[in-house]
């Protein structure tokens, strides 16, 4: 029997995969990123369609229930993605600083104030 939550999750995951496909077609994602996101969503679809699959994996890893495995993996993944986002944000800040610096130095037309040595 198919539960309503399974239908909702499936619709969302198919939507997510379609976004990955569209971004890939635009060239906005690198090959590794396409593979990463497609695998994540494909695995999630398998887990939604056949919840026993996650139970099977959970038992192999020494975790009781499939849903616990999904939660653990989701938390780890979220932490990692937050970390990557922070790194990207730092890189962007650094690029902005370089740009601001370049403008500041190019706009400086006056010669530095000089003092004669005594």
């Amino acid at each position, binding site marked *: 029997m198919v539960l309503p939550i399974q239908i909702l999750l499936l619709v969302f995951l198919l939507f997510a995969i379609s976004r990955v496909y569209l971004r890939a077609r635009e060239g906005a994602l690198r090959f590794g990123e396409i593979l990463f996101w497609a695998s994540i969503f494909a695995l999630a679809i398998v887990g939604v369609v056949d919840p026993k699959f996650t139970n099977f994996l959970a038992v192999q890893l020494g975790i009781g229930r499939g849903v616990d495995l999904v939660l653990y993996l989701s938390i780890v993944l979220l932490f990692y993605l937050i970390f990557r986002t922070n790194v990207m944000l730092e890189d962007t800040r650094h690029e902005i600083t370089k740009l601001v*610096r370049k403008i500041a130095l190019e706009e400086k037309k*006056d010669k530095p104030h000089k003092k004669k040595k005594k």
Partner: protein
Amino acid sequence: MKTLIIIPAYNEASVIFTTLKELKAFLAKAYAADILVVNDGSTDATVDEAARAGVAVVTHILNRGLGGAIGTGLAYARKHKYELAVTFDADGQHEPNDIPTILEPITAGRADVVIGSRFADPSKEMPLDRKVLLRISNLLTYILFGAYTTDSLSGFRAFNKKAINGIEIKTERMEVSNELFSEIKRLKLRLSEVPIRVIYTDYSRSKGQTNTNGINIVFKLLLRLFR
């Protein structure tokens, strides 16, 4: 030697003119150096006040933080082929008389970078919260960058040409003070410390490291280390 005094400034309109006037008066009689104010996107009259004092000013169109401003000062020093650079706070907490002292280890050929250490002067008692923050920062600098210093957060520093040309600052905000030590280690620069005097006022305390941004600094440093 061709020397540049770099003064990072963000919204320092109320004090910068006095600081620059005292600095210029000292330089006129004791040490030949140029002054550069790096206006870090101030929204007050910092630029006008600096210009009134008759010093060179470069302006960041956006506020980039202390690290960004020091980086711009060093880039300016590289561009104009300065042999020595000194970073000096705009809030008047540093003594111009200490400039020759901080440059002495470099001119004597003993150091490439000199830190003006507030901790080495027992005559001026540092507020307790500052002392604790400083100790944590020193420890962090040692753990993350392997460099031991008594004052990792000092804004009074001197660099020779090798340091000016080699140091690349990647952090934008207050964590630059710790990152400088990582650069000193990477470039195998000789580090020295000299005691300096500091004048703590309510104004200078409100402008410097706040105790609450310590956690943010630790996070940023770890992020850069593990990226």
